[in-house]
């Protein structure tokens, strides 16, 4: 069963890497953005199937930090500065949401 899970993960990651770096024709920056978006997809697996609520909170926090990187790269690709504004606001809201979720998980009031 463990070997089967290893094999499934290796097949998925290998297929994504092959499609991204050998088949897909695009500039190198777009391929890197694709790798980061695949990482976001794996994080969403942990959000859906996390055994405890703390796992989901961690996954959403990590997803926010990943999205900041993706937005910086998209701004670099289109040569537009305002994507970084969106990234900063996303990071701020992700931080506040993580703190609020952590306090709600601990069972304390939000103004404690």
């Amino acid at each position, binding site marked *: 069963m463990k070997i089967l899970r290893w094999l499934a993960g290796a097949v998925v990651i290998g297929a994504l890497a092959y499609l991204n770096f050998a088949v897909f024709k695009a500039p190198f920056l777009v391929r890197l953005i694709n790798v980061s978006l695949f990482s976001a997809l794996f994080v969403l697996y942990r959000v859906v199937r996390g055994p405890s*609520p*703390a796992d989901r909170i961690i*996954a959403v926090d*990590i997803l926010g930090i990943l999205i900041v990187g993706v937005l910086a790269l998209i701004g670099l690709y289109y040569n537009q500065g305002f994507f970084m504004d969106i*990234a*900063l606001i996303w990071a701020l809201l992700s931080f506040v949401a993580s703190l609020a979720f952590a306090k709600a*998980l*601990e*069972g304390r009031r939000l103004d404690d």
Partner: protein
Amino acid sequence: MIRQYAGMIFITVGITFDFLGVLGLLRLPDVYNRLQAATKCVTFGSAGLLFGVFILKGFTSFGFKVLLGIAFIFLTSPIAAHAIARAAHRGRVALAPESVADLYEADRELKEEDHATPQNT
């Protein structure tokens, strides 16, 4: 020319660290192990990626916004990780069955006994 290569190398290393951190988030057996792997790798990866973008863009408004993003991530990500780990431990999320010690729990029980004994006697 060397600025382009340095920026792309920083961005590639950052993306690699992001991917490895997310792999740790998927593979490790426990909430605390997942938090450790994911937060360290993803914070360093995204900060390196933003530093690569800063090298490519130089001292423009975009570059200064990227520097602001690096400072913000370095300030806020450890705070969020600490709050989540503390809440998970106080919310009685179980450790992995392979773990050998829980010193934080032992320390808390010791402190509660110290607080409890003067009231009883």
